[in-house]
Every structure is written in structure tokens, then in C-alpha cells.
């Protein structure tokens, strides 16, 4: 700070600051600081309703009126910046200010229902609180209050009680300014003014829950929490969100051992004060349909409940026999500590490098990219996005795939000068709200679109430019390599934003082949999900028939006879129908954790392959096809039952404490430690703090980037075929959104988007039923003709239909497009 001259008050005024006094206290603040903020810095609280630090000032509630010397009228502290030598007097020292505030409070309470005892906001209500400081003990208003029918739904999730509304417009301003979803607005006038929606256009915003949180009265409530608890009965714990890689701070409010609600935490560096509706409302899964006990597969083939010692013993026996012939496959939602435990367990206990966390379409090129360009790198941060002159999005739809990245980009675009370019098949609502320049490209056409735009390539060269790539780039061979080369050439900084909360942490924990620290042993690089599945499938293919070549050559009929009726000499007495030499199993054991086979390409083949593996051990919170087919199942703690941390897309550690401290459910790391104990192997600390300390000491190997794989530049499409573009919509059928029907009701409907050229060829109009057929199935959805490149169709990855599980396809695959329902 540059010190200029001291002003008359003897204060040193730094450059760009002004000196002023509030309630007789002389101080300085940066030019442009609003009086209400400057007062906060002095610890003087000026009451307010419409004011919110992250929304533009409107000064309409008139609660923050204060006196400024020389001004004839009281002025709103929320809208006026401090001026040089300004003398401000708040309600503490000015009767004018105090009277003005009292007057406003009397007005606000005129039509406000006295229903605090049954209002969800009662107990944490700014109106209630400020009525205590600035309100009259008794109302002077004797007339009838204004009434409205209540509550009304502004969306399936958000309910509005218009009688309680004080017209502060925080909700409508949030929707318009921050989220860009101006689905709610103020209607009517005078005392009849009310928040409302347009007919048939509900407030289906991904961010609608924030309006409930910033409503200073109980006018907006959500269906999830409404009438569930009194604020003073809740225990609040600061947590972080487990859904996506944005890494939001949350506040989890619990009562009677259940999460009652979740609020956005205040973290200026990450989510500011916002979060998305998925993070806010999708928590019922935490308590529904949990696996509660260890389970073992019986002699009769059924999974039965087992005791912990029995299950641990069985697992220890199986794993001890599997050293060097095991694979460890986990989902992308483990905490950083648990991921580390699996990573170390795989290498030091199971002696295998066949590990992976990418339970989704992935590639070896991606693994090399992650190991060489993302792991341990200091990439761009949220703050960098906010000041970046240019942000380019590739294979990434921010609103659906990382909503806080979207909000920060929107802030950068609306408040700053950031330009967003998106290489995407169509201008999604999120991209439109970012006023992004969309370079239309289906999967595989990304680089062509980028190099074809001189404007984009020049923009990438601007200092501070950021290139964001999403996990979907893994479905396009060569894309990661090309993007790295582009970033290197232009000087743009690159960020990888995965969809799931645990992916970055798992990557840093070395849960990829070839990423084991040297101290864990020397491994030939193993294989990941795809490699493991490959091996299982290959092993499961019918073995070569044990037919003598000579016989087959000499007499075909005899050969055929022999295969159906083998000579007794070749059969064993114990297993008369088995061939003599059984091939070794592809793996002795598979250790699986927290993933759903429906998320993995060929997930069904993976589960089918369990038959070939002597022992499959699964650790999970909920049952799915994998746990049901496993031999040993351990229940593990969900995020509320353990402490831990996630690394968000920035690589920023987001630690959270154990919400339910009395919970006895073990975290994954503790279960692994117990198994290791049973195996009499010295493993690792079982507590998160110990694990984290150990992790910090591990020197992960430096990994070289892999050569760019050869990729088919152009896919040949037959008539009626198209390349599938897809991503997961934020609110969809994800298993962690189970049990929240109100949230589900706000999801975007599933449609098939077809470009105008293909629509014309096939005679498709908006709303027509279109069937998309993949390798194993098909889905019929209404069509929406969208400005898109020819030869590309888009449909959501898991909205009503899981494309991977039901159609056997993911982004970049070729699908058949036909009009009408499948025959």
C-alpha cells in the first residue's frame, strides 16, 4: 500500500482510500466501499433486508437508512459509497437514523402475519431479529392485513408464502443477476406486489435453493425442509459437498441422527455464498437403503449377513491368496484419504498396479494426461477464472457438470470482461447464460473447430487465458494430447474439471496405473477399468475346443462326435464335465469400492466376469449390481459418518468433520486397515489425520506424457446413423439423488436434440418421437431440433435412461436414429 498524506483526523489514508467517520469513529476504506460494508468493518451493524453483499444494491427496503451530515434526508447505507470526509451517523448515534429504521420496521410488520411460531424461519429470521431491535412492542395498525392464498409452488421444490414477503427482491435479483434464471419476478404493485412466475414456466433453476437461504423472512421455503425442524433444534456442522468437483462449502443441519437440510457455506474463494440444488437437496440417499452389515456369499450362492470378524477373516484369506493377481477398482467419489488407502493397499498389500478410479468412459491417453499434466500441478483457480480475459470450454458443460464453475464464469462475464468460448455440440442454456461463443462441434470435431477459429486461437494467447477440459474428452482419441499441445503453444493455462468430487483426490492418491510412489514397490504399469474388463471378457470367452487337429482334418464327422461325447479317459472322476486343465482365473480377487457398474462401459461384462474370479470383495454404502454379485461385501461410512476431505477441480483440499460423531460405521480406510490387520500386514493409519500426514510424505513418480494416439479423423456414418454427444444433466437419475422427488421434479426433461440438416433428412419435427439405438438397446424420446452440426445427436446421459447401461453407448459412439418408436 502506498501511503499518501495523513488527513486532518490524523489518519493515514492509503492511496485509493478515503477517510470518513461513522458514529464518531474515524476510519478509512477503499474508495467505492458502501457505507453499510464500511460500518461492518467497524463492527457497527446497520439493519438491512434487501442488501446482500453479492447482489447489486437496490435500496428498496429502506431499513438501512442512516444520517449523512449535510444531507437533508436519511440515506440508504447499502447504496451509497463512503466519501472523503463523510460524516455518517447510524442508528447508534442519530435519532434521525434510528427513527427512520423504526418507521420502516413498523411498516414491514403491518402486513406481515404473526405466524413466527409455525414459520420455518422463526428463530433464524432477520425480520424477527431486527423487529426485536427496531420494532415496536405493539402494532399501531388496526386494520385488516393483506392476505394471499398460501403457500404456492413457484417450482416443485420452492414454495412461496406471499404474506410473509417483505419485497426485498433478493430472490428475484439472485435469479436474474447470479444464476441468470429470471424465472421469478415481482408482479403487481403497491401492497399487492408479489413474487411470481410466468404461467407454465416454473422456477426450475439449478440454483433455486439459494433464494430460500437468502430470503430474510419465511416467504420462500423448500419442500425438502418445510416443517421438518425448528432452527434452534438443529445441530449445524460445516461440511463440504460430495456431489461434484466444484468443492462447495456447506452447512449440514442435523437433528435426531438425520440430516434435515443443507445450506451453502460462505467460502469466498470457492462457492462464495451459493451452491446448486443438487448439493443442497440431494441428501436423502445418505439415510436410505444403506448396506448395514457385512455380507458373505453362502454355499448356496446367496449373500447373507455376516459378522465383522467372519467377513474380515474371509476377506483376509481371499486377499492373502491373491497377491499379485488382484485389481482395485473404485468410483470417483471416495474421499482423498480413502482413495489413498486403496492406492496403498493395492500396491503394498495386494502387490498390484491394476487400479483405477475412473468409473466412466476413460482412456489410456487420459490416464497419461492426468498423470503428467494434472497430478501435483498448480492449475488455475476460481479466482483465476474470474479475472481471465478468455475461458475456453472443451467437452465441458459448466452448468450441468460443475455448477459453481458456471456461477463463477457467469460472474466473470457479467461483472468483468471475461469472454467464454465453448467447443460444444449446441448452445446449452448454461452456455447461453454465459453469452459464450459456441464453436459447434460434435465428439471428435473439437480440434477442427478450435483450429478453424482464428479468433479463438488468438484469444487463447491472451495472458491469463484458461482452457478448461472436462472428463468427456476421454471419449475422443487424441483430444487431450491436442489440447495440451494447444495450451503449450498459446500459453493458455489448462484446467481439468471432472464431474465427481473424488476424482482429483484419487488421482493425487496415485489410483492410476503407473502412479505408485517408489517406496511402495516397483511395478510394471498395470491396467485400469478397461483393461480389467478386457481381461475378464477374454478369459470368459469359450476356450479352444480340445479337439485333435489330425482328427478334425481327417474326418469331420468323427471330430464332431468326439466333442459331444468325450472318451472317459479324459474326464476326471471328481468333475466329470470339467475340462482337465482349468485355465487360471484372470484375477484371484477384485477389490471394488463405491462404484456402480452402470457407470462403466461394458459394466455388465465386468459383473459377468465376477464368475471367473474366486473372490470379489466390495465396499459400498448402497447395493448395486456389483455388490449383489460380489462374494464379500462391507458396509462403509457415507460422508456424514466420517471425516475426510475432497480435492476439488482446483486441487484445493476441502476438509470436513464427521457430522454424526456417534456413528460406528467404518470408513473405507478403516475397513482396509482392519483387513490388513487380519492379514497380519503392517498397513497404514486408519484415521484421516494419520492418512493425510502419511500422504503428504509420499513422493509420487513423475510421469511422462504419452504419445498422441492415432485417432480416426472422420467417422464414416451410414444413412440413419449419427455420432452421439451426451453429458449428465445436473439433476438426473444419479443414485445419489435418490429419495428427493421434489428435486427430481425440477430436472430438465430428456429430449433428443437433432441438428436441422438431419431433422430435415429424417423428417423430424419438434416433439416427434425419435428412437436412438445403441449396441445393446434403444430409447425413444421427443425430438428437439437444435442448431447443431450435421451427423450429431445429443441426449442426456442418465435422464430416464442410462445410455451406457441401456444402450451400451457413450459420447463419440455411433448410434442409429430412427423416427417413431422402436419396433
Amino acid at each position, binding site marked *: 500500500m502506498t501511503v499518501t498524506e495523513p488527513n486532518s483526523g490524523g489518519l493515514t489514508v492509503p492511496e485509493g482510500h478515503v477517510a470518513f467517520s461513522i458514529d464518531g469513529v474515524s476510519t478509512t476504506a477503499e474508495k467505492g466501499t458502501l457505507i453499510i460494508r464500511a460500518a461492518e468493518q467497524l463492527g457497527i451493524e446497520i439493519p438491512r433486508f434487501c442488501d446482500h453483499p453479492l447482489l447489486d444494491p437496490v435500496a428498496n427496503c429502506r431499513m438501512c437508512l442512516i444520517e449523512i451530515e449535510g444531507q*437533508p434526508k436519511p440515506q440508504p447505507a447499502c*447504496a451509497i459509497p463512503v466519501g472523503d470526509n463523510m460524516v455518517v451517523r447510524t442508528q447508534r448515534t442519530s435519532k434521525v437514523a434510528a427513527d427512520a429504521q423504526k418507521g*420502516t420496521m413498523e*411498516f414491514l410488520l*403491518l402486513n406481515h402475519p404473526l405466524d413466527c411460531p409455525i414459520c420455518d424461519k422463526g428463530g433464524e429470521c432477520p425480520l424477527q431479529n431486527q423487529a426485536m431491535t427496531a420494532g415496536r412492542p405493539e402494532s399501531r*395498525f388496526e386494520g385488516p392485513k393483506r392476505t394471499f392464498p398460501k403457500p404456492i409452488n413457484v417450482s416443485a421444490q420452492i414454495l412461496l408464502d406471499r404474506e410473509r414477503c417483505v419485497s426485498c427482491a433478493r430472490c428475484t435479483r439472485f435469479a436474474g443477476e447470479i444464476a441468470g434464471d429470471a424465472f421469478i419476478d415481482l408482479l403487481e*404493485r403497491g401492497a399487492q406486489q408479489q413474487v411470481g412466475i410466468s404461467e407454465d414456466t416454473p422456477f426450475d433453476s439449478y440454483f433455486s435453493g439459494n433464494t430460500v437461504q437468502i430470503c430474510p423472512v419465511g416467504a420462500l421455503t423448500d419442500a425438502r425442509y418445510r416443517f421438518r425442524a425448528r432452527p434452534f433444534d438443529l445441530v449445524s456442522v460445516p461440511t463440504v459437498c460430495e456431489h461434484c468437483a466444484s468443492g462447495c462449502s456447506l452447512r449440514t443441519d442435523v437433528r435426531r441422527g438425520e440430516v434435515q437440510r443443507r445450506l451453502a457455506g460462505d467460502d469466498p474463494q470457492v462457492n462464495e455464498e451459493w451452491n446448486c440444488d443438487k448439493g443442497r437437496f440431494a441428501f436423502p440417499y445418505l439415510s436410505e437403503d444403506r448396506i448395514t452389515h457385512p455380507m458373505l456369499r453362502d454355499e448356496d450362492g446367496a449373500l447373507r449377513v455376516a459378522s465383522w470378524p467372519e467377513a474380515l477373516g474371509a476377506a483376509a484369506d481371499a486377499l492373502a491368496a491373491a497377491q499379485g493377481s488382484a485389481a482395485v477398482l473404485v468410483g470417483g467419489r471416495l474421499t482423498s484419504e480413502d482413495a489413498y488407502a486403496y492406492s496403498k493397499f493395492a500396491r503394498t498389500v495386494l502387490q498390484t498396479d491394476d487400479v483405477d478410479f475412473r468409473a466412466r468412459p476413460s482412456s489410456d491417453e487420459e490416464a497419461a494426461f492426468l498423470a503428467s499434466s494434472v497430478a501435483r500441478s498448480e492449475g488455475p483457480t476460481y479466482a483465476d477464472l474470474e479475472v481471465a480475459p478468455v475461458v475456453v470450454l472443451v467437452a465441458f458443460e459448466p452448468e450441468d457438470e460443475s455448477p459453481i464453475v458456471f456461477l463463477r464464469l457467469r460472474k466473470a462475464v457479467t461483472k468483468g470482461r471475461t469472454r467464454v468460448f465453448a467447443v460444444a455440440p449446441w448452445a446449452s442454456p448454461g452456455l447461453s447464460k454465459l453469452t459464450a461463443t459456441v464453436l459447434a462441434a460434435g465428439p471428435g470435431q473439437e480440434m477442427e473447430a478450435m483450429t478453424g477459429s482464428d479468433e479463438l486461437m488468438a484469444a487463447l494467447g491472451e495472458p491469463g487465458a484458461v482452457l478448461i477440459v472436462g472428463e468427456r474428452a476421454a471419449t475422443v482419441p487424441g483430444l487431450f494430447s491436442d489440447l495440451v499441445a494447444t495450451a503449450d503453444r498459446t500459453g493458455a493455462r489448462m484446467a481439468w474439471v471432472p464431474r465427481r468430487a473424488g476424482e482429483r483426490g484419487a488421482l493425487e492418491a496415485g489410483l492410476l496405473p503407473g502412479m505408485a510412489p517408489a517406496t511402495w514397490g516397483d511395478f510394471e504399469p498395470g491396467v485400469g477399468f478397461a483393461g480389467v474388463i478386457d481381461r475378464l471378457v477374454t478369459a470368459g470367452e469359450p476356450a479352444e475346443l480340445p479337439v485333435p487337429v489330425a482328427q478334425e482334418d481327417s474326418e469331420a464327422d468323427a471330430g464332431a462326435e468326439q466333442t459331444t461325447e468325450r472318451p472317459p479317459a479324459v474326464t476326471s472322476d471328481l468333475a466329470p464335465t470339467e475340462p482337465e486343465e482349468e485355465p487360471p482365473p484372470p484375477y484371484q480377487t477384485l477389490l471394488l469400492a463405491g462404484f456402480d457398474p452402470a457407470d462403466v462401459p461394458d459394466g455388465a461384462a465386468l459383473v459377468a466376469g465376477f464368475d471367473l474370479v474366486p473372490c470379489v470383495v466390495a465396499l459400498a454404502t448402497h447395493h448395486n449390481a456389483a455388490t449383489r454379485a460380489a462374494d464379500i461385501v462391507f458396509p462403509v461410512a457415507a460422508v456424514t459418518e466420517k471425516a475426510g476431505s475432497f480435492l476439488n477441480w482446483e486441487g484445493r483440499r476441502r476438509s470436513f468433520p464427521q457430522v454424526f460423531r456417534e456413528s460406528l460405521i467404518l470408513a473405507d480406510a478403516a475397513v482396509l486397515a482392519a483387513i490388513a490387520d487380519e492379514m497380519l500386514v503392517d498397513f497404514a493409519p486408519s484415521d484421516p489425520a494419520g492418512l493425510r500426514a502419511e500422504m503428504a510424505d509420499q513422493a509420487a513418480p513423475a510421469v511422462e506424457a504419452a504419445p498422441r494416439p492415432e485417432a480416426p479423423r472422420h467417422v464414416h456414418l451410414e444413412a440413419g446413423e449419427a455420432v452421439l454427444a451426451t453429458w449428465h444433466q445436473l439433476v438426473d437419475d444419479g443414485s445419489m439423488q435418490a429419495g428427493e422427488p421434489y428435486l427430481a421434479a425440477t430436472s430438465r426433461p430428456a429430449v433428443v436434440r437433432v441438428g436441422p440438416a438431419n431433422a430435415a433428412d429424417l423428417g423430424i419435427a419438434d416433439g416427434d418421437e425419435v428412437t436412438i439405438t445403441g449396441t445393446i438397446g434403444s430409447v425413444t424420446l421427443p425430438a428437439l431440433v437444435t442448431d447443431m452440426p450435421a451427423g450429431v445427436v445429443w441426449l442426456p446421459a442418465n435422464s430416464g435412461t442410462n445410455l451406457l447401461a441401456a444402450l451400451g453407448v457413450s459420447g463419440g459412439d455411433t448410434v442409429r436414429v430412427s423416427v417413431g418408436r422402436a419396433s
Partner: protein
Amino acid sequence: MPLTPVITAHWDEPDSFTLEGYRRHGGYSALPRALEMGPDAVIATVKDSGLRGRGGAGFPTGLKWSFVPQNDGKPHYLVVNADESEPGACKDIPMMLANPHALIEGIVIASYAFRADHAFVYIRGEVPHVLRRVNAAVREARDAGYLGDDILGSGFNLNLVIHAGAGAYICGEETALLDSLEGRRGQPRLKPPFPAVAGLYACPTVVNNVETISNVPYIINNGVDWFRSFGTEKSPGFKVFAVSGHVQRPGIYEAPLGTPMAELLEYAGGIREGHELKFWLPGGSSVPMLTKDHLDLPLTYEAIAEAGSMLGTGTPMVFDETTSVVRAVTGWLDFYKHESCGKCTPCREGNWFIHDILHRFDTGTGRSEQLKVLDDVCGQILGRSFCALGDAAATPFPAAMKYFADEFEAGTTTASSATFDPAASTVFSEVRA
């Protein structure tokens, strides 16, 4: 002082509203003169003339024009506020009916002065006949080359749009008007930025009243000295006074500013036969009422302010002794409660409150202590609302209490209709008697 018809000079002619009628008396001769003078000279002339805004606030017009930043690379806009909705005000509507071309010529000159190439007239939607007439005048002017591209060969282009409002008093507030014009819900905007910096579509904008702009051609034609020969030092020029209420000849009287109210009352034929003045308001319901003790006041911005009221729109409303002050004030508050836009708390809720209590006094069911509440509530609105609508709503009651406290006291026992027969204040009362 005699009447000085300027804008109203030829309203008695059957074709005063046509291009021909306007041109017959020198219409559109100021425009070429202004184009000759150059924009800065036009601003200087209007500034020197001392013309003050005729919409109610009386802000110096030339000064307002000079606030528009020049060479800023942004479009500039002139928006004419023709949303005349003030109870008692009826001057802009007749002016647009009888002399729309003075307005149009003024618009072209003003736009030329502060380099606007797009102008709007925001006319309240309840007067379709005025909309039709102004639209017809715009057509005539465009056909004659006074609007459109390359006006009179000067290279200056101006597009003029006539916009119909949808019937909200608040849209007479300049920033609410701009919101409404942009297609939004009409609610006042936070200032700063002022419209001169960021107005319509966030570009520099001047919002002027119909009468203000209609003055401009006459000033350009006749000069500063001529204009200043009317009125006073601080309130120069003439004013279209619209006198309404219990007078013999309600109507429009154009006279120099500074004409005493008593004289204006004489022009209007005095109070109706057999009655006497009870109170009057200089400029619409939003200004404090005055009594017969104030009749000698010159009608200037400064003198009326000194007496505790405001010249406002300069449309005096006159009430005789048949009028119940309580009923009059209650009626106005019905209006303000209905027209409050709802944006700020004091106006939205305060009017609901005042309205509730006033109705008790109007029906004889008030309680003395509620007069104190009323006074408090008005004090809680005045100076604390977002825009002047709240201030206006908080004005009638305290002023009425100042002169007619006894009538409000009576409201604790007796309905106003019992003391003051509502029929007696109507225009047909004599017929009925």
C-alpha cells in the same frame, strides 16, 4: 398581469393541431434557425433563458441538457414525459391535442442540441385520442421533412417514436418511465447513475416534460430577452396554468410566472356563484394545500416554496367550502395507495396504513390519538421513500391538519358525508338544488 398566450395562442383555431395551422403562425421557423445556430449555441440559449422544467420539479432545462456527455460514442436519447397522471393536472394532454407540432419542433431542436438521434414521447395509455393526434402530427412532420433523415438538409437525423404507457402513475417518475419504455415493469431506478449519464438502454438520456419542450421553439424564435421579459428572475417565462375545481370557468390560462393566484382565479371567473374559497393546491394533489390567505402569492417556484408548498405542475386545484378536507385527502390517498409501485417499504406499506386510518376519519370512526399516528406515519414516509411518489403521498395530510385540524377531530364522531354533503361539491349540485 395580462394573460400571455404563446403555446396556447391559436388553440381557438379549428386547425391549430395541423401542420398547416402551426406553420401559419410561424411554426417550424425555429428549427432552421436552431440548425443554423449549432447545437452548443442552442443549449446555451436555453440555459440563458432560464427555462425550468414544467413537469413539477422545476429543474433548469438547459443545465439538464448540458449534463449529457458529448463525444462519448454512445447514442443519446430524448424522452418526453407525457404520462400526465397527477390528480388535478391537465395541461400536457390538451397541449398535445391542440398544439402537437410545437412539441415535435421542440423535440427536434432539443435532440439536435444534445445530439440525440432517437426521441420518444411516452404518452399515458388512457388517452388514445391524444395518441392518434400526436401520431398524425408526427406523420405530417415526417412527410414535411422535419423528422427522419437529413432534416431540412442539415445532415441531422432524428427518429421519433410515440409510445403508449399502460396506466401507471409511477411511470411519470422519469426512471420508472425509462424502465417502462424499455419494456420492463415501471419502477424507479436507483440514482446515481442519473439518466443524463445512463438512462434509456443505459445511454445518456434527457427526460423532459411536454410543456418544457413545447417552450423551446418559441425561445429559439424570440430569444432569451423576450422569454425573460416574462416571469421573475428565478422563474422566467410563461406557464400554462390549468385551473380546475370550484371555479366558474375551469380551464387553461397561459400567463407569466409570477402571476398572483388571485389574478388567475379572476381569469377563471372566480369561485362558483354563492360559494367561497376553502383551500387550493398550486400544482396537483402532491403539493401541500394553501388557503385564501395565500391568494396573493405570485405563482413562481420560489414564492410558493416559501409559503410551504410547491408550484408543481402549475395546475391549481380550487376547492370551495362545500368540500370536506377529510374526504379530499382520503380520496387522494386512495389514489396513492393504488398507484404506489411497491418497490420501497415506506410507500408500499405506509400508504396502506394512512389509507386505513384516514378512512376511519372519513366515516366518523377515527380516534383522536390516531391523528398522532397519522402524523407519525406521514413523517415515516416523507424523505424516506425511494422516489417522490412516497413524499407526495405523505404531503396532503400534514398540510390539511395545519389548516383544518378541527375537521379531522370531527372525524372521530361524524362522517364527512354528514357534515359535507358530497353532492354539494359536484358540478351538478345547483341543478340538484
